[in-house]
């Protein structure tokens, strides 16, 4: 069994925890998220005949009064960066999250989740331009969540 550490990063209230809830098999108590700024969840999956397991670290966004230890970022094989597609400031801060992550994990892979797509109208969706490694997701409607995680898992494992 191959296991990999995956991070879930993004601003406050972009829906990281909802994405995790929708996807994973098992996780620690949510109360730890507010205590130490991280919640760890587990997901087993099989990719092209290979059994593997993702240990997903849902890391709370840093605030002016609270910083997140950089050691959380270390040793990660991949990361999912999440933003709220309806809040431009969360999209703008994606680069900062990505740079911080890649600085500590040079060879790691990443994908981007433009979350809360259920709040967009159809014309808005049509006008949206997404990068190649990005997915329009909705934890509420379970849209693209599985695909998001599986894509990153393939990048990391295969």
């Amino acid at each position: 069994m191959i296991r990999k550490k995956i991070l879930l990063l993004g601003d406050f209230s972009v829906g990281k925890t909802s994405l995790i809830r929708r996807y994973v098999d098992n996780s620690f108590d949510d109360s730890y998220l507010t205590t130490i700024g991280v919640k760890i969840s587990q997901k087993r999956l099989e990719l092209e005949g290979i059994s593997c397991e993702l240990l997903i670290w849902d890391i709370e966004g840093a605030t002016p009064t609270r910083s997140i230890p950089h050691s959380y970022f270390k040793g990660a094989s991949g990361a999912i960066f999440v933003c709220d597609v309806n809040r431009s400031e969360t999209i703008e801060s994606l680069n900062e999250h990505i740079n911080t992550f890649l600085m500590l994990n040079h060879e790691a892979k990443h994908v981007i989740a433009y979350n809360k797509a259920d709040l967009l109208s159809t014309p808005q969706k049509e006008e949206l331009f997404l990068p190649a490694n990005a997915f329009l997701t909705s934890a509420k409607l379970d849209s693209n969540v599985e695909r998001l995680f599986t894509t990153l898992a393939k990048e990391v494992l295969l």
Partner: protein
Amino acid sequence: MSIVYCLRRNILQSSTSEFEQLQQLLLGSELDHLKRLEEQLKRVEFRTKDEREIIQMVMPLLDRMLQERLQNPEDAVVKVLSTHLSALIAQASQTNPAKLSLALQSTIAPAISKEIANNKEKMIDALYPVMGGMVSKYVSEAIREFVESVNEKIEDGLSFNRYKRKVKAKLSGVSESELLLYESRESLISSLLIIHKESGLLIAEAHLQDKALEDSHIVASMATAIKDFINDWIQKSQKQGEVQILSYGDATLYIESAGSVYLIAFLDAVPDQELRSHINSFFGTLLMEYMEIFQGFEGDSSSEEIATLTTKMEAYLNLQEGAEGHTSPAHHSNPMKWIAVLLGIVGLGYGGYLGKVAYFEYQLAQKIEQGTGYQVAVTCSSDRVILEGRIDRFEALSPIEKIVQHATPKPIENQLTMPLAKVQERFAWQERRMDGLSIAVAKRQKRLIEGYEERTKQMAQELEGIQKQLHKLQKYLKATTMSQHDTLSRLNQLNHEREAIERVATMRREIVSALKQAFGQSPLLNSKEGSVDFAKVNLFMPDSDQINDALKPILQESFERYLFVLLNDPTLRSYIQGIVIEGHTDSSGGEQYNLELSQKRAESVRTYLLSQERIKALHAEGLIRAVGLGSRDIVEVNGVEDKEASRRIKIKFEIKSNKIVENIEKIIDD
């Protein structure tokens, strides 16, 4: 009080003397009493207006009343007082808390005691949230400190149990550390996890039977995150240290960090120092053996090495658990061995020195075992330390020798044995390595030599170029130096010439000045050029070179005066190059004719003058020469030739400046 007041009014209204007499007769002493009463009444009236005095007067009365009421409580009184009691207590706690607590102590303490006795469970439940944590914390801390203190003393001292354990270990063949693990059953290790430090991924895990952790991988990651979180806080607080103990409910996590991994031991109590040291020692042996696996871990825990690692960790845990159900190693030992032990103890008492050496050997063997996991017999002779035992890897040799070298400066005699297969394998490996090294060295050597040769060639070429350049520079320098020297020389020459010119110029001026003085206002002297010009005297007839006889005395006298000025003063004479007698014609004849005529005229004059005795006496013949200039320098008056004036001679001096001029011209040409 109202009766007294009426009497007072009546007395005041009866003011006549008869009436007063009658009063005195009827009332007598009562009247005096009445006056005293009146005075008292006045005082009372004054007091009733002072509120504080009234309160002071009334309070003792009220206190007495209250005490009487409380001693015989009535529902009504209690009801009234209870509404004000809390306010009164609050007020008293601020004004005089000591007195209040003293007053309440006697009442509350017995009441609590009684309540606890009657409702023990309820009281504990109520108090535990407040007191439980605090009590638990202080009790745990006190016990931990006590245990650590005792352990330290045991470690440092020579306790019987320690020696017993050592002897036991010797006899049973079970290591002392394992025996210690048997004895430390108070802190039971239920699980061991080895976690990759950076990623928090679980590398290996081992659990006691029925104690397996659910979701051990999440637990490993979570423990890593918690440890990182706390360590981050510690670092930000600029404090030293690292988290080693985490407690959660009944579980205690002992975390030891080294290299690229954590080891986490799950215990049911906080481990004492001895157990921690033991766990660390075990962790150390794993680190040495599996360091490469740990460092290169990328999430795949299915390798064969990790399976053996897991087996070792399980064996370690089961050894601990086995103490519960199995007989201890002491039980396996033969009673005869205990007799031998006693004999041994007697022997130790007999030979102190031998005992000391043996103790050192034993300590060293223990250190080796704790540090490397190998049981090695150590024998100290007078000049060396002999190591005997069996190891299974060559890599173990270096740490063993390091431990011995740290303990004693004596040289080591290594009699450690190793499986033949391992030795052969090692030799084969060494051989391969040597071959590989030889090839690599040869390649490297060749590359270096080639590199050096190439570099030498380049350097030789560069050197040649530099030498050429240097040669050119030397030549240039030489040329420049010569040129400079030449320039300086010429410059000096020029300076000399300049000085000579200046002297000549000065001298010319002096000669002309002397001539002016000698000739005075004579019209014959051309004061501008310092010559004597016979243009005004008609010295020659046309086409003739015969000197007009009438003018010969003037000619002679003028020439003598001229010569005297030039030749009499030695300074002036030293500058005189020569004296020129120029012959001139008018423009009537042809040029050649005129030249010849002028030459004849000049010669005629020279001959005449040199024939004169006074001129001869000056010995100036060599200086005087005659030159014919033809008609090139005719005399014109208002643009018309004065032919008489043109037929003339002119006497001039030449100064030694010609050579100087030639030199200057040459320098300018160069």
